[in-house]
């Protein structure tokens, strides 16, 4: 395969692929019978994000974004905590980060490799610079807004200056 024939990143990674990965993660990691439903609901006013970076032939980040309360509920579900046990901030960061990590690792595997995965980070937004959205799935979990975004240069498979076939 010549460089000119390399597929654009969007040909390898579409919302259906991201959804199929989420379909495997939610019932296993979040809990039996849980699902990431790809039907958008109103976005929350305040958000928290967890993300991992991907570095290799393609550079970008996989980001999971939701309201802080949703992040807390996700952590409770992942950790299978039952009242009166409560999750603390560190638990929430850890669980949300692990979800981003598992999403990121599986998304990385459908992209050209070899590439490496960064450690999970958490904050209001990724600090990976201004990146385009390659793919974004706005969905919900237990009725709460949840967004999975893959960010990165859409033409990064080509060396700079190479024309990308349309």
């Amino acid at each position: 395969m010549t460089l000119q024939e390399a597929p654009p990143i969007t040909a390898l990674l579409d919302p259906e692929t991201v959804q199929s990965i989420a379909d495997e993660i939610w019932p296993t990691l979040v809990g039996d019978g849980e699902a990431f439903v790809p039907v958008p609901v109103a976005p929350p006013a305040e958000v928290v994000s967890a993300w991992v970076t991907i570095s290799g032939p393609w550079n970008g980040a996989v980001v999971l974004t939701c309201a802080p309360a949703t992040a807390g509920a996700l952590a409770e579900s992942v950790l299978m905590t039952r009242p009166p046990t409560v999750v603390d901030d560190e638990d929430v960061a850890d669980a949300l980060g692990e979800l981003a990590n598992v999403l990121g690792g599986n998304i990385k595997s459908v992209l050209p490799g070899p590439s490496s995965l960064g450690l999970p980070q958490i904050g209001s937004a990724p600090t990976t610079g201004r990146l385009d959205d390659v793919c974004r799935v706005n969905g919900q979990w237990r009725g709460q807004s949840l967004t999975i975004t893959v960010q990165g240069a859409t033409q990064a498979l080509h060396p700079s200056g190479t024309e990308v076939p349309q």
Partner: protein
Amino acid sequence: MRALVIDDSRAMRRIVGSILKDFGFEVREAGDGQQALDALQEGKAEGWVPDLCCIDWNMPVMDGLQFVVAVRANPELRQVTLMMVTTESETGQIVKALAAGAHEYLIKPFTADALRDKLALLGLLPEEVSA
């Protein structure tokens, strides 16, 4: 049976650990490869050698692959079974981990049944739960 669960996510340590406990394992935890090597060292002093290490790949300080190499370089730990439990799932990486000396490879996300299947393959399940 004894297991050392090595993962920088405590949520993941708790998930893997609780499944292993259900199968009768005595479980210790470590947050990265270096902590795991320290835990093995400490364990040796008290006669605690794990039968199994479940090893995440991406961790701070020392990653899972470096840990596998370090354990394989130590003849005293030859009988310890090493299983990667990671979201890394490129074919090349699985090959690399196996070549470094990992015995099995479980990809995240996984179900408790999938972990049980791997334990069965490795001969680490007590008879009564292997059926």
